[in-house]
């Protein structure tokens, strides 16, 4: 296992694997998104209370949940890079940050648009989940800005990794804020102990959309990781063999 881990952490192997995996994530992401969106918009019955506005949840919930997932992945990659001094792990963490920004912005936007007709407001400072999700966006942006502020890549890796690890404290806060404090958000209805409280007719399109988002994140991460490896390994001898000729 360690041999496999060591091999995967070499830039030429990671570069090649990311290039091969990208289409295997991208096309399923597009197909599943189209399928999931069609089901969410036209197949799923309207909610008895929220009516058609509940259809927003099919893009909002995966974006919100996976923005946290991306943050945790970024923090774990940064920790692996920091502890074992693996450059590819730092490159992966750097690749995930812009994806996290996009997902968090999407989560906040779709949440605000859903909140206007349902809660009567676009934004509620009193809701801990909204506020800590905004903090998550600032953590992603802070991570990217901190990286950009250093000319030395190794120093940028170390400093930004510390921020990513410290910031990961915010992830369980966002997740459990609905249980710990009074919140406009409902408590967990899918990932909870016991049977999910969401009706099966509404659950399967949500699952399809969640898988579509995961595939999309992986496809974008493959491109970003390859770009990051190329930037870091600009003087490496293996690049000559790895670069396709025009």
């Amino acid at each position, binding site marked *: 296992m360690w041999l496999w881990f060591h091999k995967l952490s070499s830039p030429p192997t990671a570069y090649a694997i990311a290039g091969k995996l990208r289409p295997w994530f*991208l096309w399923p992401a597009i197909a599943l*998104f189209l399928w999931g*969106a069609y089901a969410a*918009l*036209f197949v799923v019955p*309207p909610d008895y209370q929220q*009516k*058609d*506005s509940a*259809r*927003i949840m099919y*893009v*909002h919930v995966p*974006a919100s949940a996976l923005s946290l997932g991306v943050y945790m992945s970024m923090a774990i990659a940064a920790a692996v890079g920091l502890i074992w001094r693996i450059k590819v792990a730092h490159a992966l963490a750097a690749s995930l940050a*812009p*994806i996290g920004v*996009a997902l968090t*912005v*999407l989560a906040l*936007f*779709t949440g605000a*648009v*859903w909140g*206007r*007709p349902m809660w009567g407001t676009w934004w509620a400072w009193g809701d801990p989940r909204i506020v800590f999700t905004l903090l998550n966006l600032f953590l992603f942006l802070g991570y990217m800005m901190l990286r950009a502020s250093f000319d030395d890549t190794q120093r940028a890796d170390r400093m930004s990794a510390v921020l990513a690890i410290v910031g990961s404290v915010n992830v369980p806060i966002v997740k459990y804020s609905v249980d710990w404090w009074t919140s406009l958000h409902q408590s967990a209805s899918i990932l909870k102990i016991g049977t999910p409280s969401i009706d099966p007719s509404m659950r399967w399109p949500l699952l399809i959309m969640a898988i579509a988002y995961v595939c*999309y994140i992986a*496809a*974008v991460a493959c*491109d*970003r990781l*390859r*770009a990051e490896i*190329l*930037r870091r390994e*600009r003087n490496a001898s293996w*690049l*000559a063999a790895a*670069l396709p000729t*025009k």
Partner: protein
Amino acid sequence: MIETYASFVWSCYGVTVAVWILGLWLARRSFNNELSAARRRQQMSSSD
């Protein structure tokens, strides 16, 4: 068919599609830029 809150629903799906496309395009552009820079460096070093 969507009968209630249509503008809210469609705007969310529209923005989601836009963010997906933008994310893919930016990532691809970043990779292509690095690839052409690496190729340029390679050509320069081989011509030296």
